[in-house]
């Protein structure tokens, strides 16, 4: 009996295995084919790191490739920490880092291409329109745990926090003088998109995310509301003038002084022509 059950399972497994190996095989073929056709003089740039910078870098890379047909730019995400680590070990030509370099990282070369703010978001139906820094701190410490205490609905607050290692988390805790250990969260998320979806689906949630991502999704019609921080609204104007308090640079970092295509790419990313692309993604261009 057991044999019968096991063998019917086995055939299923074999079928799945065949499909899987076939798809891997086909995937490998297309990859090989692309390499075979590659021009020997073609060069490749590899960028890895921050998931906030990656969509912007990919867009810039797209334009860069159009201008220089002999270069292929490969953009991979994996967080700012990976951007630092890969640039350091030479696994990537350029690392993407969505924060200032730490003292231990200052041997790397850093080139800001744009700025991004971090702000608090709540559901659109939430009547609360602003929070003082102290209120934010107490919400994240669990001392304020109902929206009623802030003039909102009588509903417990769903506190959304980021997983350890994200630069957004570090920036947030630094600004609000919070210790990571004292945060009492109800939901922990990985990336901005997950945070925005959580708040859009939960009228009593509060989260902090990249303004670029939040403004974009709010523009797409998701029911979220961006709150001011310390009474400064997260508008493009306030971000650009430097009035908005939680601002971070989106950096490209390299191990050596940039040369060749690396230099050309960084110059291109920082050129005035990229301003409109940066703004399209709701990031703030560098001041002239």
């Amino acid at each position, binding site marked *: 009996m057991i044999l*019968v059950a*096991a063998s*019917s*399972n086995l055939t299923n497994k074999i079928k799945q295995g065949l499909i899987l190996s076939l798809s891997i095989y086909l995937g490998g073929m297309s990859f090989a084919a692309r390499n075979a056709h590659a021009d020997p003089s073609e060069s490749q740039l590899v960028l890895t790191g921050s998931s906030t910078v990656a969509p912007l870098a990919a867009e810039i890379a797209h334009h860069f490739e159009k201008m220089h047909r002999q270069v292929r730019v490969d953009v991979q995400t994996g967080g700012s920490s990976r951007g630092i680590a890969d640039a350091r070990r030479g696994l990537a030509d350029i690392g993407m880092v969505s924060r200032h370099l730490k003292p231990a990282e200052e041997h790397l070369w850093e080139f800001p291409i744009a700025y991004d703010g971090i702000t608090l978001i709540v559901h659109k139906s939430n009547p609360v329109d602003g929070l003082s820094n102290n209120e934010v701190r107490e919400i994240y410490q669990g001392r304020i745990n109902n929206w009623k205490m802030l003039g909102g609905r009588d509903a417990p607050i769903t506190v959304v926090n980021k997983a*350890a*290692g994200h630069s957004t988390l570090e920036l947030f805790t630094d600004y609000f003088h919070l210790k990571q250990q004292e945060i009492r969260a109800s*939901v*922990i998320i990985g990336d901005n998109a997950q945070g925005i979806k959580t708040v859009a689906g939960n009228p009593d949630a509060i989260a902090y995310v990249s303004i670029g991502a939040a403004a974009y999704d709010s523009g797409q019609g998701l029911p979220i509301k961006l709150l001011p921080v310390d009474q400064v609204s997260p508008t493009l104007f306030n971000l650009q003038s430097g009035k908005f308090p939680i601002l971070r640079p989106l950096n490209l970092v390299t191990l050596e002084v940039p040369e060749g295509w690396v230099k050309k790419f960084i110059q291109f990313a920082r050129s005035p022509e990229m301003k409109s692309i940066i703004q399209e993604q709701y990031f703030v261009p560098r001041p002239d």
Partner: protein
Amino acid sequence: MSLARTERMLYAGCRLASICSGLIVLFIGFFLFKESLPLLLKINPMRFLNDPGWHPTEGQFGLFPMFAGSLLITVGAMIVAAPLGIILAVFCRFFAPRKIANAYQALLSVLSGIPSVVFGLWGLVVLAPIIRHVQPPGVSLLAGVLVLAVMILPTIALSANAAMTSVPFEYLQGAAALGFSKWQRVWGVAIPAARPGIVTGMILGAGRAIGETMVVLMVCGNVVQVPDSVFDPVRTLTANIALEMSYALSDHRAALFVSGLMLLFVVMGFVAISESIRAKVIEK
């Protein structure tokens, strides 16, 4: 002669394949161990169970809440899915008209083929808001248990069904001849005779549940805590790795490999327990 040669080749092929699959497990275990070793040498391994919290960037590596989360969610999903799966199989095998039974089986096969991220999405946008109305925040141990139960239900039901199909017809005929009612034939003869197959299905289901990552990442809330109730969010060992791996460096990264190592041990313990249960069942 030629037959003997094909047979020898088949034998060699089988041996090669089994050595390979065995080696892969060993390699993965070795790799996990190698990557976690720097941290295992640096701090007392007991700290992974005893540290008061999980703050890997601040030197606290308590993995116990994740360990408990993984275990609770798997056990919970089994408690929900196993009885349902067995009842479903009994219905298909003994009570449903042929056509309905076939349609049911096809449906279950489709269910088992749905990618886990789809289940996760469903849990996030449909199930979690419903649970939130009962008790916020909605993403919780309960949401994870329910979605995983739906996911492993087909595995359990289909193998229970296969096991019951292979119960010798004479057993049932004999039971009927002795005047057993239909229910008595099912409960007293078919299920006990099919028990090894049912247990196998449950083991496969539990294996899938404990290794599942995408679903739990989406619907469980991922808060590091030992839950007080089923409405509390939890984080599992798998979600811990998926959530933090791409952002982790040095000690933090090694600690995540320790999570992987712990998961491997949990699965080993699981297999050992279920093997001993199965041995007992077969003995009976």
